[in-house]
């Protein structure tokens, strides 16, 4: 096969990448580094240090962090159970657990809103049982619930894959050499599943941190994440320079997360196929 001739086939894609991935990002940088008159300025690049924006960034990072931790705490025991219990149809159970990943995510937020809003289903059940009321809609708690619900499959999948792939021989060997349950967990299972947990964290943390839809629907517009501020700069305040500056900050945070926890395996959805 003539290699040079085959390489030519990728030219349409290279043009597409330059046109629709690289140039748009350059546009963001250019917008972020200029003011409305088109003159160079540091104002928007440093806008993140403004107290309002700093507070929003902090809240975004906090909520994303809490959501990621909760997702790990839910997923890891599930993975250990599926590994040790040796159910007959582990694959099918896994399929069922991951399936909601394919459901439209606005739809899933709508479902959560239905449950936890003030006159929602949960409060109705509680009042029938005379158990008091929950008042969490429009609070950060509601947003965390939404994030966990939306992104849990993205944690479950890599964690399950990783834990189930650990060979039983290694665990047996550890036990033979005198390791108790606790040491098997801390010295064998957890170290061997770190890569799965890492890619799970990236896949939950990045979308949670850059989120604005969940905060709009479950936060009632009262809670400002960095994503909300950026969205408003583009759709309401029309200060695109400021919006671009903040987007650039967001990108840097995404990059740091990816470098810290490993890249997300985008091919994850492939599991179902």
């Amino acid at each position, binding site marked *: 096969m003539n290699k040079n001739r085959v390489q030519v086939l990728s030219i*349409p*894609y290279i043009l597409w990448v330059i046109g629709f991935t690289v140039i748009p990002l350059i*546009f963001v940088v250019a917008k972020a580094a200029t003011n409305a008159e088109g003159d160079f300025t540091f104002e928007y690049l440093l806008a993140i240090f403004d107290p309002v924006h700093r507070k929003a960034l902090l809240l975004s990072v906090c909520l994303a962090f809490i959501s990621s931790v909760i997702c790990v705490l839910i997923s890891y025991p*599930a993975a250990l159970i599926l590994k040790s219990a040796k159910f007959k149809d582990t694959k099918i159970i896994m399929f069922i657990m991951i399936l909601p990943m394919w*459901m439209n995510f606005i739809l899933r937020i709508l479902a959560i809103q239905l449950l936890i809003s003030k006159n929602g289903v949960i409060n109705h059940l509680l009042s029938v049982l005379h158990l008091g009321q929950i008042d969490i809609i429009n609070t950060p708690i509601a947003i965390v619930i939404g994030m966990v619900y939306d992104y849990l499959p993205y944690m479950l999948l890599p964690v399950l894959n990783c834990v189930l792939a650990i060979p039983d021989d290694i665990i047996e060997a550890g036990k033979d050499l005198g390791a108790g349950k606790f040491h098997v967990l801390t010295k064998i299972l957890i170290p061997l599943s770190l890569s799965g947990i890492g890619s799970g964290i990236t896949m939950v943390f990045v979308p949670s941190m850059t989120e604005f839809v969940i905060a709009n629907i479950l936060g009632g517009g009262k809670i400002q994440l960095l994503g909300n501020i950026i969205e408003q700069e583009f759709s309401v305040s029309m200060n695109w320079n400021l919006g671009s500056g903040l987007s650039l900050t967001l990108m840097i945070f995404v990059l740091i997360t990816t470098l810290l926890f490993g890249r997300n395996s985008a091919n994850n959805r492939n599991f179902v196929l």
Partner: protein
Amino acid sequence: MMGKALGKIYIVLVVLFMYAPIMVLIALSFNASKSRVIWGGFTLKWYRTLFESSAIISAIGTTLLLALLSAAIACIIGLTASLGIYAMKKRDYKIMLFFTNIPLLNADIVTGIALMLWFVKFMPLGFSSVLVAHVTFNIPYVILCILPKLETMDIRQFEAARDLGATSFYAFVKILIPDLMPGIFAGFFMAFTMSMDDFVITYFTKGPGVNTLSTLIYGEIRKGIKPEMYALSSLLFFIVLIMLIIVNISARDNKDKSDLAAY
């Protein structure tokens, strides 16, 4: 065994957490009362209003057309790109993969904004801008489905066909395409569902008047309780479910066939 029973309960609880909200949503889509908590009897009227609303019908059409077109275009560009990348030297190969990863790693909101800034300069916001945006984030998924298949493929069959006198195009169609078909199919399916699922990028790149199901649902639920939206969501749920089951069954059939062929 006590431990196994507890384990089962835990798994059931996780599954319940994932499905209970969707089940409630589906149940309410058949509720005659507009209330979220009072059961007013079984009805299909929300489904009827769904199909009487021209806005919803046109959103369904836009969503499907967008998903089909963007997945098809992404498959063509992604397939040729994969072949080209596969033939590249290690350094170029790595550079290409780096650029392929950008839309996957980047936050949707940044991708959406970047494309919007580009579109407002060079083309009107509308169906075509959303289509370009969807193709942009779909191509990487296609490449990541096809490239691994190319790498595990036996290229000697292709070379043998060439040696026996097949033109490279004929050998490509007869040897490579059938081998790559599962990858192309997986890429198409993934691109199709990613496009159906997308909200953020569509939200920033669509012009006024263009609505996909995601943007329509988003706009409607902010206005208040709309049982039609529950009906629409339930429909979406079942469409995706049926698609997944079909894809899995056909994938299993293919696997069985190839297992048989191996004997």
